[in-house]
């Protein structure tokens, strides 16, 4: 095979890996949208907040230390201990569950029955609030996240492809792990929603709120549940992205990248989120590779949106979304 083609294949493979990470964020969106009809803009900030909490707990940071120092003139920064990764992950997951409960209790409960767009804007407000809150709590400097995931170039793939094609593929270990974890997560979520009692209740709510209420399903519990699951997915996404590029504000911008994924796949479909993520991941890498140099590069910023926009003009509900039926 020619050099150029092999290179394109490598780009595609890396695009697939990036796509998995997009899909991971998009998954959180889809879960909440299905269960409560809320388009949760705060998903990206949730991932950032979860990752910040994880790092903060792990390194024994004192929450709000900057604020305390500013008010009382003290000089405190860290507790004198380091927490093992696994306990820190559990603690961060616990914080996300608490967060889900607070969101349901203080925001969603009061907004039941409002138009969708109002709920959407409320989640934008929530995103801003959490952004400020997270920075105030843990500080806004760049943090490195290390929970013992393998990093760096994968030698096995390099050697194997080198023998096979005479050209070694560069794959990041972290990307491979992320793909495996994402696959596991999707499998676990599918099993949960298909076979467990709560999962069935969740699907019932997604199908029809009032019918679910009338057979005795507690809507509020389901909402807390689904926001907790979304918080957990956010934590996983936060760990992956955080390990890749550090925990900082730009992490929350992956939510913006997940939006075209959602549009492409359809807001209500879990497989749609995965496939949409892969298409966007591969598409933007290949586009940057093939056409980017001709028009100035950095096309990743907008390619996904324009692709989704063009796609939607022909299929307004996305690839796997439910057909939109409008009545007067």
């Amino acid at each position: 095979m020619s050099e150029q083609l092999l290179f394109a294949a490598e780009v595609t493979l890396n695009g697939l890996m990036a796509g998995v990470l997009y899909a991971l964020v998009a998954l959180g969106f889809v879960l909440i949208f299905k269960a409560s009809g809320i388009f949760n803009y705060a998903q990206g900030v949730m991932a950032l907040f979860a990752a910040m909490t994880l790092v903060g707990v792990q390194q024994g940071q004192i929450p709000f230390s900057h604020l305390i120092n500013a008010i009382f003139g003290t000089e405190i920064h860290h507790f004198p201990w380091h927490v093992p990764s696994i306990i820190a992950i559990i603690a961060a997951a616990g914080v996300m569950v608490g967060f889900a409960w607070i969101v349901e209790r203080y925001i969603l409960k009061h907004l039941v029955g409002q138009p969708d767009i109002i709920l959407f804007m409320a989640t934008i407000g929530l995103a801003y609030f959490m952004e400020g809150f997270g920075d105030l709590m843990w500080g806004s400097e760049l943090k490195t996240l290390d929970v013992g995931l393998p990093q760096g170039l994968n030698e096995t793939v390099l050697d194997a492809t080198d023998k096979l094609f005479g050209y070694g593929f560069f794959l990041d270990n972290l990307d491979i792990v992320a793909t495996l974890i994402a696959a596991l997560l999707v499998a676990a979520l599918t099993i949960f929603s298909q076979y467990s009692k709560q999962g069935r209740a969740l699907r019932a709510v997604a199908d029809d709120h009032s019918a679910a209420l009338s057979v005795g399903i507690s809507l509020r519990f389901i909402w807390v549940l689904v926001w907790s699951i979304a918080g957990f997915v956010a934590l996983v996404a936060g760990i992956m992205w955080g390990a890749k590029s550090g925990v900082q504000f730009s992490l929350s911008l992956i939510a913006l990248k997940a939006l075209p994924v959602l549009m492409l796949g359809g807001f209500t479909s879990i497989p749609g989120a995965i496939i949409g993520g892969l298409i966007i991941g591969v598409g933007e890498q290949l586009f940057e590779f093939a056409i980017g140099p001709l028009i100035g590069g950095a096309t990743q910023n907008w390619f996904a949106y324009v692709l989704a926009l063009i796609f939607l003009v022909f299929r307004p509900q996305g690839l796997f979304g439910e057909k939109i039926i409008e009545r007067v």
Partner: protein
Amino acid sequence: MFYREAGDFKTSYKDDNQTFPIRLDRAGYWVALAVAFLIIPFFVNDYWVNAVFAPFFIYAIAALGLNILTGYAGQVSLGTGGFMAVGAYACYKLMVAFPEVSIVFHVLIAGGITAVVGVAFGLPSLRIKGFYLAVATLASQFFLVWLFNKVPWFYNYSASGQINAPERSVLGVIVTGPNTDAWAKYLICLVFLVGLAWVARNLTRGMMGRKWMGIRDMDIAAEIIGVNPLMAKMTAFAASSFFVGVAGALFFSVYLGAAEAGESFGITKSFLILFMIIIGGLGSIFGSFAGAAFMVLMPVLLKNVLVGMMGWPTDLAAHLEFMIVGGLIVFFLIVEPHGLAQLWRLTKDKLRLWPFPH
């Protein structure tokens, strides 16, 4: 007691349909205009214009524009920052290419160019609705900013990639560039704001505005009673983009003086203006003003109180500002989804009866 309809007889349809039906409101309107035009210009200094008045006026124009699209025509847009960038760069190219033409025309033509771009990006709204459209407008935001960063023609091949406003004057008074007087900056923004607010008010209460509102409330039903959705949506995008483009042109030429697309017109600007119209009130001219004033004044106030009076570091104050803005948006959506404009309306209703209970 003083705020009442009694004794104010309307004898013609024109009287009946006026913007301020109550005498005290009308008086207040004229007094506000007189103060803004005849008194404040003599007292403003650089700090007040740069921190408060110029951003307030310019954001109010942008908020009016977005309110036309989102509040009146019901099409949510997250591309405002991108359209402001179109206005700014169009204005820059015009200012450089035709130095002998007055900047007033440059700003207005820049608005017109933005309107054309807005219509082009608004075309998909015929097929895409609701959230899908909101996300689709992000395409314009990111694409336009990328375009202005990557195509050197737009910034005249300057080494820094920035655009700098050359010095231009209106009626012999310098209004752009570093030598501008505070009052000139103030007045040019005010003139544009008052003119455009008048246009917006009359657009939205006329036939066009009614069509927009029909599309907003239910597009299929509106189509059945004879509103052409293509025309209604495209005019909404055009009018809205015109306002936003003018705001962008002023923001660059009069207020900033130098701009860089990604920094000055990024996605945060789109959200900022969206927040203005949510907090101010969707579908209300007064709401656009109130929201813009609120979002401009609150950070200034917070900064003065936290940094100036309590001695906090600036970054802490910025984080707290984020929290307060986010919290307020959620609070407003829960307590009063129609924003400050609705509170104002309720206050006026109460005032009509005061001090009597019925």
